[in-house]
């Protein structure tokens, strides 16, 4: 019984994954980054015909196979074992990024270190501390039709949604949407709009947890996760 679930007590990562899943349209090609974005596929109905793509050349990835049935030739971009759904294909890296940069990818969901009020994402290095590298993120943010940042709202008590990124940005392109456990935010020409609050979260709590200035117009609804699976 869905309406008996208390979403206010749900794990923040699952709130984010469920809310992002609501953004995914049937029959689209979607790339999910490592971490929270990977969880999104758990909340999609398989009948939707969504194909998951990974930078390493998988088109049509399915869940990790049962123990003993994995194969080291079929992995996602993080190197984890996956399966191939019916109708899957595998392509080389040039083709894979041709899809990404060429606008053939309907949606990418990525984690972030920071996003700012202009919608710039920073997710590939913390100068002087940790330099993971951008991997495919710069191409994904630049090339996908829609870019969603899925991340926990704060890190070590600090807002990850800032007025202007002080970390090096991943792309000059504005991301489409930011989904955290506290809010859904959309960067537009006139600023960073608060579209929804998290389950049981007030507008005031979002404002207090957010460094970036928010545009708040009218009543802000709460995320409606009741239809998610």
């Amino acid at each position, binding site marked *: 019984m869905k309406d008996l679930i208390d979403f206010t007590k749900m794990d923040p990562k699952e709130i984010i994954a469920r809310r992002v899943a609501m953004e995914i349209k049937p029959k689209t090609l979607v790339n999910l980054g490592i971490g929270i974005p990977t969880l999104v596929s758990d909340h999609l109905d398989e009948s939707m015909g969504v194909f998951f793509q990974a930078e390493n050349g998988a088109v049509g990835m399915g869940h990790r196979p049962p123990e003993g049935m994995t194969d*080291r030739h079929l992995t996602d971009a993080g190197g984890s074992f996956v399966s191939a759904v019916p109708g899957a294909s595998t392509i080389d*890296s040039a083709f894979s990024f041709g899809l990404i940069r060429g606008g053939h990818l309907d949606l990418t969901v990525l984690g972030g270190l920071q996003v700012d009020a202009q919608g710039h994402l920073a997710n590939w290095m913390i100068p002087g501390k940790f330099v*993971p590298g951008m*991997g495919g993120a710069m191409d994904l943010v630049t*090339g996908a039709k829609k870019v969603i940042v899925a991340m926990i709202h704060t890190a070590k008590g600090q807002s990850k949604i800032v007025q202007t990124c002080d970390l090096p940005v991943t792309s000059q392109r504005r991301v489409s949407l930011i989904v955290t456990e506290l809010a859904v935010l959309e960067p537009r020409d006139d600023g960073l709009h608060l579209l929804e609050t998290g389950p049981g979260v007030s507008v005031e709590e979002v404002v207090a947890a957010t460094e970036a200035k928010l545009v708040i117009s009218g009543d802000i609804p709460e995320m409606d996760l009741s239809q998610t699976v």
Partner: protein
Amino acid sequence: MHLAISLEEVAEMIPDGARVMLSGFMGVGTPDGIVRALAEAGKKDLTVIVNDAARPHCGVGPLVKAGCVKKFIGSHIGVNPDVQEKMRAGELQVELVPQGTLVERIRAGGTGLGGVLTPTGLGTLIAEGKPTVEVEGKTYLLETPLRADFALIAARSCDYVGNLTYMLTATNFNPIMALAADVVIAEPEEIVPVGVIPPDAVKTPGVLVDHVIKRAA
């Protein structure tokens, strides 16, 4: 036609200081035998062009651990602490390249194109010092072609003409790197008789491949 050679012969063939492309993605589709042979031979000052630093035990990891690598050119080093550590200690130069740009620069180097015009990286640190080119009102970053002395490739099947097939996501950079080096060396999982791989299944025509590795019996 190619006579298959041994890993020892490959280790002899590649000199210290060589510029090497190494295929694979998080260690999947990497020629692990060649990596091990080079690490064991104690190669020095290699420049390695590879998608990612993988982990210490796979991909380029063993070469980094053994101190063979002077310079790393790739897109991701986040899960190999050896690389983070050696980079901070100044023992390893790291040049980060966005993944799509990396593969396209290699393709340009291998197919006689003068460079890559990409929107990726514009307005970021990656664009610093690089020229931009305007085409039909849009601005693109001009990235230069990449080539290497050696390309070290992992294949599924191979014949004695050098035709290669790859399997699933172990394909990744292999077919592109096979275009872009003076000497291309393939480590297959199996060698099959000539004529057995259907022409449409060949992903790298044998004309691109200089040497194939003999499998242990």
